């Protein structure tokens, strides 16, 4: 597994210029296709060609452009269902951005990833991943993502049938917040926030297998709160689906942790500058350390000198022959 990660790192270091846009394109296309499949009320946008163009635009712009295009897609589909639904969608996302995501723009992708995870029945994956890569404060981002997901679900499950039954605009507009701000949303928010906080707190200890334990603990806590809370509050939940979805979410979070979050993917950097005498074209290529060993860091010098300190990143370097490596490096001098 270590060799596979090293090979992935080396591959990314060499070809990141091409890999990153392709990955952004694939992610954006996947998000837009899932949103279209779930909503799809605006006929003009129900064409793969348009989604491919939008995904191609997202690939060359920053990640928040993907978020903006995705939100515009959701709002457009809501307008396709009805003016009042579209207006509510617009108000909801504008208020979320103005009141929260202007402070943490890097978490804005949660507004799209939570509905996508919900559509795939893996609602727990976003709070688990937020706990792994951010801090406990990201519980708020998870909550905002849940509001977005619940809104998409309500549009699909309740508003669309209402519109088919020719309900009045005011009735539809009044039924949306009543369905949105329900005990189910509160239960999901509490479960997600608790899972995010627990995972983030465990990860901060940074010992061996901490992340594995953090993900499992977070998933178990999410499951317990959802099932027990559902019974306590009287919310109808599909228990087998929640159990299976939470297990799948934990598996996805562990996969992402192993191949994305724990690996230091550094790109080759191209830097260009000049002075009075020369033009400089610099290519910086990240070093690959042999055997996957990282430089070991200790908490403080005294513990390193005594040999009693615990390495910060806990890497086992016993298998590396430093003497041979030193002799090899001296030959180059």
């Amino acid at each position, binding site marked *: 597994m270590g060799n596979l990660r090293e090979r992935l790192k080396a591959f990314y270091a060499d070809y990141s210029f091409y890999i990153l846009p392709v990955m952004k394109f694939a992610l954006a296309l996947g998000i837009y296709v899932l949103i279209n499949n779930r909503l799809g009320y605006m006929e003009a946008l129900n064409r793969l060609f348009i989604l491919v163009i939008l995904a191609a635009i997202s690939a060359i712009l920053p990640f928040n452009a993907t978020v903006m295009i995705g939100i515009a897609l959701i709002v457009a589909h809501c307008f396709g269902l009805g003016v009042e639904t579209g207006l509510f969608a617009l108000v909801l996302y504008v*208020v979320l951005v103005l*009141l929260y995501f*202007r*402070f943490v723009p890097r978490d804005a992708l949660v507004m799209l990833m939570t509905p996508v995870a919900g559509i795939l029945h893996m609602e727990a994956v976003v709070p688990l991943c937020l706990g792994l890569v951010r801090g406990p404060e990201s519980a708020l981002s998870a909550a905002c993502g849940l509001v977005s997901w619940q809104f998409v679900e309500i549009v699909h499950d309740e508003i669309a049938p209402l519109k088919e039954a020719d309900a009045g605009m*005011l009735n539809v507009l*009044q039924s949306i917040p009543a369905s949105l701000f329900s005990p189910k949303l509160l239960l999901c928010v509490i479960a997600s926030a608790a899972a995010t906080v627990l995972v983030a707190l465990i990860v901060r200890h940074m010992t061996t297998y901490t992340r594995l334990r953090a993900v499992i603990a977070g998933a178990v806590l999410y499951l317990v709160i959802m099932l027990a809370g559902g019974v306590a509050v009287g919310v109808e939940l599909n228990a087998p689906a929640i159990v299976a979805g939470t297990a799948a979410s934990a598996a996805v979070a562990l996969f992402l942790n192993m191949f994305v979050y724990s690996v230091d993917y550094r790109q080759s*950097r191209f*830097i260009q*500058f000049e002075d009075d005498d020369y033009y*400089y074209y610099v290519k910086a290529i990240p070093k690959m350390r042999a055997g996957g060993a990282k430089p070991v860091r200790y908490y403080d010098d005294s513990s390193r000198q005594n040999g009693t300190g615990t390495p910060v990143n806990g890497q086992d370097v016993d298998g590396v022959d430093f003497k041979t490596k030193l002799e090899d490096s001296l030959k180059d001098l």
Partner: protein
Amino acid sequence: MLTKQRLQLMISLADFKQSHINTTMRVTKYYRNDYVAVQLVKNFFVTSIAYLILLGFFAVYHLDFLLTNMNNLKMGRLAAVLLIIYLVMLAVYSVITYVIARIRYARAREKAEDYDQKLDLLANIYREEKQSSGNPFGEDQ
């Protein structure tokens, strides 16, 4: 003459300029209090817009009640309650904005000072190289 020290310094400066200079300069072109003041002014407008949007939606949601009880509503008391809610919301968001602006300014200032120190070091290296190349004045003549 190309030296390793000069090259590493120039690469470090160029790398920073390529990646962070716009975001850093956007912050450090202000004095700290001016930057925080600008953010608070922006916060005032953004929070007011968000409050008006929420108020408008709240009015539409309770339109039936409002239309039915329009004559019985105590407008003065209602206005006072809405104003208090607005002021509380503005105060909370102003505090959050103030704290975040101070932290952002401090971080950008640190990066800018590091960049300036490296620029000064590079200028000294250039000066020394020109002096050691036989030009005591260190200037092109």
